[in-house]
């Protein structure tokens, strides 16, 4: 059992190395689904208590072209006319989650110039620079909510009053609600950067908690 895993890892290691050397894309080496099916069904890592990534499936490949992304139908001609994310993303600033693009930087640096109006390319969006600090109990740094980066993209009415009453401290917020897709989670974790980037929101350091015993 463990030996089989070892061999598999070894083979994958060799493949990765081999592919890196020959600079081949990974995809062609994937087996045809038909050939893969019996083997995969015979022993799925899902049922193995010693498996790594037992509960959280490892990420597949990112930024796939539409025809290979699992939701577009490759049998549709139109699918093949669509732009692939990687035809644009390598020229944009990088981030660690979501599209793997730092959209705030891309906009600030002028790498992209998205319109603020559907037809009028000259229309400017109203930007408001106002930070709201939300104190957080416990060890996590305080949350700084920046109006500036938001109003570069969004209209006041996108948040006020539907998601947030516009009054400092008037809204109850919690990580649990955010992870259910409420409050900041309406956009973060769906279109804007992901919840995994804790420090983008929890950005104001505070006095470390006093040690429990010390005085």
């Amino acid at each position, binding site marked *: 059992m463990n030996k089989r895993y070892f061999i*598999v890892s070894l083979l994958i290691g060799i493949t990765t190395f081999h592919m890196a050397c020959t600079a081949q894309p990974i995809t062609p080496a994937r087996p045809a689904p038909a050939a893969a099916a019996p083997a995969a069904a015979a022993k799925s890592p899902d049922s193995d208590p010693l498996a790594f990534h037992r509960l959280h499936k490892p990420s597949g490949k990112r930024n796939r072209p539409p025809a290979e992304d699992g939701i577009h139908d490759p049998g549709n001609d139109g699918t093949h006319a669509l732009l692939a994310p990687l035809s644009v993303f390598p020229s944009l600033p990088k981030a660690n989650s979501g599209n793997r693009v730092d959209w705030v930087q891309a906009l600030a640096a002028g790498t992209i110039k998205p319109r603020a109006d559907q037809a009028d390319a000259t229309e400017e969006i109203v930007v408001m620079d106002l930070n709201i600090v939300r104190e957080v109990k416990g060890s996590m740094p305080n949350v700084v909510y920046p109006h500036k980066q938001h109003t570069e993209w969004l209209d006041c009415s996108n948040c006020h009053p539907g998601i947030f009453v516009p009054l400092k401290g008037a809204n109850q917020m919690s990580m649990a609600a955010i992870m259910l897709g409420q409050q900041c989670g309406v956009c973060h974790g769906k279109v804007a950067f992901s919840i995994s980037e804790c420090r983008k929101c929890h950005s104001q350091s505070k006095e470390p908690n006093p040690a429990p015993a010390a005085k």
Partner: protein
Amino acid sequence: MKKLTTSTGWHAVLGLPVMLALAWVEVPVARAEYGDVVINNYSDAAGMRPVVFPHWFHRLRFRCNVCHADLGFKFKAGGNEINMVKIIDGQFCGACHNGDVAWPVENCDLCHTGKPGTPSQVHESDIQQFAQPMGSTNKK
């Protein structure tokens, strides 16, 4: 069969066990692009492929306010009751896909690109990524 020292031979010999190995461990599911929205309230039932809306592509060209404030798209996958009459009357996608701001509505197969049966949802969201019981249908 070529000699092993040639590159092709090396590929062939390495290729088979590698393919078996990859077949044996789970091949990771392909991933949609973050923020891709499938809209499928009516398409399946009407015999059309579901619609796939790519956020990344549109946000390179437009800020969020254009669609979510000016054009009135609610922040909810499948939450806008979009249909073709509204589109040809210039609402929702039709505010731009009118041959003026963007290519016109005759290009059915550029919007209706989804795999049949895919429900309305925003793809690769954090909620889909959280650890969950195996076999759960939440993912895809």
